[in-house]
């Protein structure tokens, strides 16, 4: 029997993996992958909770919108990273430090 707890544990794990990826990876595209993992953890949560909200299904609807918005922001993110690569010939955020105090 798979209960709500199982879903929550899985999503918490995915969220932590995503957060680790964002913090540890030295590549802007891997950071985008990490962000995607974090969003998917949240979507899993929303769908799992939505099962108990039979009245208006707001969890499922929220999940759908979150998927669309995630796709949009990743598309913009990739375009911007491509642009950075044109200027710097690298996408390691550690090497791109013209702006700092």
């Amino acid at each position: 029997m798979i209960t709500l707890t199982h879903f929550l544990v899985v999503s918490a794990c995915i969220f932590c993996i995503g957060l680790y990826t964002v913090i540890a990876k030295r590549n802007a595209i891997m950071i985008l992958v990490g962000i995607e993992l974090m969003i998917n953890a949240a979507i899993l949560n929303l769908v799992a909770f939505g099962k108990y909200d039979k009245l208006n299904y707001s969890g499922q609807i929220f999940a759908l919108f979150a998927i669309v918005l995630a796709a949009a922001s990743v598309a913009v993110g990739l375009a911007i990273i491509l642009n950075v690569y044109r200027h710097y010939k690298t996408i390691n955020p550690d090497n791109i430090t013209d702006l700092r105090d």
Partner: protein
Amino acid sequence: MQDINVQLPNLLDQVIQSIPYFKAELALIFAFLGSILATLFVDKWWKHGSFVITLTGIIISFILSTQQLGAPQNGFFGMLIVDNFSVYARGILLLALLLCVVFIQQHFRNKKFSKNLGDIYSILLTAGLGLNILTMTSNWLLAFIAIETVSISSYILVGFFSENKKQAEASMKYVLFGSVSAAVMLYGLSLLYGFTGNLDFTSFEHIQGLIEAPKILLSLALLFMFSGIGFKLSFVPFHVWAPDVYEGAPTPVTAFLSTVPKIGALVLLARLFEEWTSSSFYFSELVLVLVSVAAIVTMLVGNLVALRQTNIKRMMAYSSIGHTGFLLMALIANLASEPQVLLFYIAVYTIMNLAVFGLIDVLEQKTGSAQLESYQGLGRQFPILFTVFTLLGISLVGLPPTAGFIGKLFVFSSVFDLFQFNNNKYYLILLIVGALTSVISLFYYFKIPLFAFLRKGEEVKVAYSKSAQLVYIISILLGISTLVLGIFPSILLSLFK
């Protein structure tokens, strides 16, 4: 499935009835579509086509939203709240957006590049749409969609031109930081939904669920949720993107980023704050403590770091972080008073910031630099400009007789009333830090007249650019209006009644 079929005509009727509440936003949507089409087809023959459509769209939206004044209503099953607070906020927001569109058009008028400027206007319109929705919702779904709409539009605004390395870097930092905080916020919202089963944060179920939720998980969810709003408002510790992005982006885009998105996020937070801090349960205390601590730390960090900046745009970035702290304090003051205190401060902040960035843009076009040292001795060449600049500095510090003083006075007196009412030590610390940081800010704002009037510098060859004229006039007028509003604050206050 059966009961859905029965309900469906009913639901559709309700949706159709709600559409008139959305007409100000519909105007923006149509202007968005129109400006895309104009960019593709009209701009070849008449290069101002998309610009004019954008301006018309914003003005129509402004007129339509002012018509909603005085008739509080709910639309789309309570997802859309049309009350006076949102009408005023949208008024300020749309006027600021209008000025930003003009600034951007003027800034890029004489520059040549391969990209089409019309796209920027349509992106500005989507940002305005998202912000409008943000001011009129208490539903997490709509709030999240609106925040993401504004964020994605802002990423494009910063990254679109990318004439040099700095702009590309700024846009990458912005998009990565922004997406991470949006993802964290989404996770926090999913937890909040799990506790309560309802996405409307003013609803009874939502507050009931928050009262019953386990404390540790609730604290985590609230922290996550605040990271998303904090990113848009750029309060500490979610401020690290702001100086880099403000410095890297083209100056009129910085003028947009430092004012307009903050209005929307602040109104959302004000609704949330008012609804959630009225009870004496754990989550109310937690929200109050979180906002107070964020306000205190933000004021301190913003103003202290601004002291050692040499680039004027970076300095103004830290100054606007410091002002965010003060805006959060105005949010707390909002508990004790009418919303007009908060609205007054927002309006004054918007005027001051737009004017300052307008003047920075003018100087950047004339001298080609945004470094403070490059202003040496310029006071003799541009006496009016630097007099107004100094006046704006005085207003940003909050000294009389300017509008900044009146705004700060209202906030301080409201927070003091709150302190006398319930003796919460956070209010006292807020008052002390607010006063202290205002004094600190004196030191860096007065660097501008110091360099311009007192230091001797080389005579700078001024590139005569016609494009700066309109921005110059608008900024001077805004600067004078801070003085007028400082002497007659009732003009604005009676408007917000």
